[in-house]
């Protein structure tokens, strides 16, 4: 274990997985609620900005079984989502992890360099700290989009008791639309996140479960972009590429006994 370092605090790991569960329930039950009226227009009116009005979300993407069931799940899980988010945000504020997430000077250039590298326009992985610039952008956006979904959700939950809020979002119909868009934003961030975990840094899976991470296997050290150098540097690109092993290794984790390969 000497080669690993502590990466995620227990609180971060627990809130991460609670959030994953709560978000999945919120999105799937929300889609079931949406299916009761899969459109945005006030009755008798038209709505400018949703071309799929009337199209149901496929049942297998939904949760809750029926409208009342989905509503009960949605309105119970919202507390889990919000309380968990407050625990997480409070913790990273007090414990200092927020410093790894807030945008820094040069954030825009950093994002640009990461994108260039990922599409194959750069030879070496840009230098990074705990997270690269794209990750910082995503992890910083997530609570903001989450807050947008909570606020727009409150506005459509209580359009009369919280009428000023609903009014500020453009009325019930628009608040419902913002709520839908915020959900799409959260889903997009989640898919991007999960894709990058598997395609660039599967070793981070260990870090978010046990908390430990092997820095020798960081994407920067492996010079990894999606599906490239997943297993770490073995031979230099100038040499002949090593043939792929004939059968997949038995586990997702690299064997810990494996000696660290040449450091870049």
């Amino acid at each position, binding site marked *: 274990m000497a080669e690993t370092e502590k990466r995620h605090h227990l609180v971060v790991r627990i809130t991460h997985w609670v959030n994953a569960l709560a978000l*999945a329930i919120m999105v*799937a039950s929300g889609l079931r*609620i*949406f299916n*009761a*009226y899969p*459109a945005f227009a*006030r*009755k*008798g*009116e038209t709505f400018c900005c949703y071309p799929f009005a009337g199209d149901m979300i496929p*049942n*297998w*993407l*939904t*949760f*809750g*079984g*029926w*409208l*009342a*069931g989905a*509503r*009960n*799940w949605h*309105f*119970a*899980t919202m*507390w889990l989502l919000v309380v968990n988010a407050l625990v997480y945000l409070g913790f990273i504020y007090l414990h200092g992890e927020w410093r790894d997430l807030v945008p820094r000077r040069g954030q825009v250039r950093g994002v640009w360099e990461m994108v260039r590298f990922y599409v*194959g326009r750069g030879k070496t992985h840009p230098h990074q700290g705990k997270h690269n610039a794209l990750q910082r952008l995503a992890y910083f956006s997530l609570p903001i989009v989450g807050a947008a979904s909570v606020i727009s959700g409150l506005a459509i*939950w*209580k*359009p*009369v*008791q*919280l*009428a000023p809020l609903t009014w500020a979002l453009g*009325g*019930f*119909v628009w608040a*419902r639309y913002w709520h839908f868009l915020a959900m799409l934003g959260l889903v997009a961030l989640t898919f991007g996140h*999960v894709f990058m975990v*598997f*395609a660039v840094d599967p070793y981070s899976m260990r870090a978010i479960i046990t908390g430990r991470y092997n820095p020798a296997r960081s994407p920067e050290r492996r010079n990894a972009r999606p*599906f*490239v*150098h*997943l*297993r770490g540097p073995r031979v230099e*690109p100038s040499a002949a*590429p*090593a*043939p*792929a*092993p004939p059968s*997949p290794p038995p586990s*997702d984790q690299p064997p810990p006994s494996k000696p660290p390969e040449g450091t870049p």
Partner: protein
Amino acid sequence: MSGLWLPRHAAERAGLDRRRFLAAGAGTLAVAALGCGSEGPKSAEGLLRAGERLNERVERALFRHNAMNHAPRRAVNTGLRFPSYFVSPRVPVWNEAARGVWRLEIGGLVRRPARLTLGELTELPRTELRLEHFCVEGWSAVAVRTGVLLHELARRADVSPDARYVDFASFDDDYHESWDIESALHPQTMIVYGQDGRMLDPAYGAPARVYSPVKLGYKNTKYLTRITFLAERNGGYWSDVGYEWYGGV
């Protein structure tokens, strides 16, 4: 396997991992799909009920008598495109020959019970409000509602201070819904007999219905026959099968 969309050397080196990636992705989706489309585990029902109780406390704390519903000025009156709905197989129509003249009964924990005909109801102080309606399904619609404020009826009936709930019963099969008394006495809650300037159509709950813009549509009993002031809540047609009892907006 090589060269699908990655440079050849990269694909060769990554082919194996990509296969594992796809397998892992498919596995994750399959696990997720197992839970989807379902109502969720039965063991969660207690948690969901606890959630509903917590929500009711929050909703009642949020409730304000001076929080008003105003339909947006630029919103179009929905008119006859307003969805109509009832639980009987056909539009419920009061059968005067069989049941006598329709009367709205006001009873329960009141000192002066009443049985009002539609004519008597329309002679009481009249209120007309243009309101945005919120359905549990997620749609909204705008209509002008004409009727008598329920707190006016409650004042005339001299409701006992013990009354904490109100039940609204109908002749649409056994449809009824009970409410907290605060919502029933909200200054926009009324017994409606007119919609968009005309007497209520049978499709919309004639002769009279309860209407409050602080409740979701399903709490607003149509085809009203009886208003009962109660010390305890009395469930409701939709509340009893799983919809939220409070149903406030």
